[in-house]
């Protein structure tokens, strides 16, 4: 650990910081374009070719806007909250591997680090809502806290199941790079589809995307925790939301889609970041696609789904994966047999979960029909 090391790290972190900002600008532009296409509009088209500079122009506009601060806010916490929201998401990018050699800090407990730091961002939201001294902001932050902590559990259990599964193929099962290497043959999406589904739902809720954007809910609580923020402080909330989306897509690509693995990725290492970017883009586009047709859920539906369906399903998933992996290692089963068992059980669980949702939906519909028939 020398001064040169520190300077190297600082330069890399600076590049990553600007990289995250650029990625966010790109993702916002892509979302506006994709949503416009899905809704048969043109989307941003004036600023630069295909409107690609639109978000940069928006950022400059936010910088130049007056920073309105009501007199009733708690000043210190009000100023501190945007910093506390953005920093954890940025700290996650330090451990994300871009290819087999391209990783800043390859922690042996990368998975645990990700889970721990992800839980920190809720603090900033609650502080922002509380410091604003505004009813809407308080309600928004309470909803945000409830949603984040509820959906963190299925997310964590799904991620933990990935760590357990990786122990069959690598001796560093909790490092993100180790997990990607363990998926050299089969991505965990095929072995554990239920885990991927739970992770995706949890990620949507963690980043408060539609259909889980109850904490923002513009029509009821006018934006939630950041009602009182304006100008660039509001922009930081927005930045964090999209940086979180990119981070979650990155994690999903690493944990479930095989990361940088692809055809000929071992022979030509420069292909690896390309495959990773392709997979991340696919997940981000899937999130935009989910956003386009769906309405917002109610808070009781949201919590019921988390506690009555997602958490039990993820617990069962975890126990099944642990037991099968343990039995495989003890009894020297073939790897494909263990993977097959987990994947069959996982698909069966997913089908049962979907069946429960469908039956509940029909019950509700029948209730409404009877009420309207009277």
């Amino acid at each position, binding site marked *: 650990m020398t001064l040169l090391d520190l300077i190297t790290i600082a330069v890399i972190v600076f590049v990553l*910081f600007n990289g995250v900002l650029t990625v966010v600008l790109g993702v916002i532009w892509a979302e506006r374009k994709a949503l416009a296409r899905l809704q048969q509009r043109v989307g941003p088209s004036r600023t630069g070719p295909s409107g690609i500079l639109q978000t940069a122009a928006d950022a400059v506009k936010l910088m130049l806007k007056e920073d309105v601060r009501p007199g009733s806010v708690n000043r210190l916490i009000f100023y501190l909250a945007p910093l506390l929201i953005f920093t954890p998401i940025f700290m996650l990018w330090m451990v994300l591997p871009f290819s087999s050699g391209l990783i800043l800090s390859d922690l042996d407990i990368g998975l645990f680090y990700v889970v721990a730091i992800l839980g920190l961002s809720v603090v900033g939201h609650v502080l922002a809502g509380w410091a604003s*001294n505004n009813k809407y902001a308080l309600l928004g932050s309470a909803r945000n806290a409830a949603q984040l902590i509820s959906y963190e559990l299925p997310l964590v259990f799904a991620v933990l199941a990935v760590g357990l599964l990786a122990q069959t193929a690598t001796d560093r099962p909790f490092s993100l790079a180790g997990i990607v290497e363990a998926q050299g043959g089969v991505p965990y999406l095929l072995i554990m589809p239920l885990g991927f589904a739970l992770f995706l739902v949890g990620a949507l809720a963690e980043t408060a995307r539609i259909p889980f954007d109850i904490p923002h809910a513009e029509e009821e609580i006018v934006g939630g925790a950041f009602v009182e923020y304006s100008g660039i402080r509001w922009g930081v909330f927005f930045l964090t939301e999209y940086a979180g989306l990119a981070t979650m897509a990155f994690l999903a690509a690493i944990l479930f889609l095989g990361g940088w693995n692809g055809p000929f990725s071992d022979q030509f290492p420069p292909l690896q970041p390309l495959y990773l970017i392709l997979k991340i883009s696919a997940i981000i586009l899937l999130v935009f696609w989910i956003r386009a047709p769906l309405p917002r859920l109610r808070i*009781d539906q949201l919590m019921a789904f988390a506690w009555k369906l997602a958490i039990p399903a993820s*617990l069962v998933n975890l126990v099944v994966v642990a037991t099968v992996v343990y039995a495989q290692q003890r009894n020297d089963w073939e790897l494909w047999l263990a993977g097959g068992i987990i994947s069959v059980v996982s698909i069966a669980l997913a089908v049962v979960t979907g069946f429960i949702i469908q039956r509940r939906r029909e019950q509700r519909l029948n209730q409404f029909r009877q009420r309207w028939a009277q």
Partner: protein
Amino acid sequence: MPGEYAFNWAAIAIAAVFGFGGVGSFFLISRILAPRRASTLTAIAYECGILPTGEGNTRYNVRYYLFALFFLIFAVETVFLFPWAFVFLDLPPAAFYSMIIFLVVLFFGLVYAWRKGVLSWR
């Protein structure tokens, strides 16, 4: 390797500094460039244009608190799960299955709360 260990965690500490510093620099630039015209009207809390009534820190549903308590229980469970997951392949069967039994007990705790109606919004 101790050198690599220090390098990894130094990177994370520097990232925290850059996260705070970078966002702080946005605020600084905005403070220099943006206009500031404080008035009594912009100093009022925003409630869709109507003058705010009552306190800002209003009451809200106690369910949020119950869910937070639940989360605490399950979060402690994950804290126990992670060390177990690191070594579970080397454990004897008794140690392995005791964790599974712990999970089952917690699951029934969830079912109990569910039956008691804690999870429904009434």
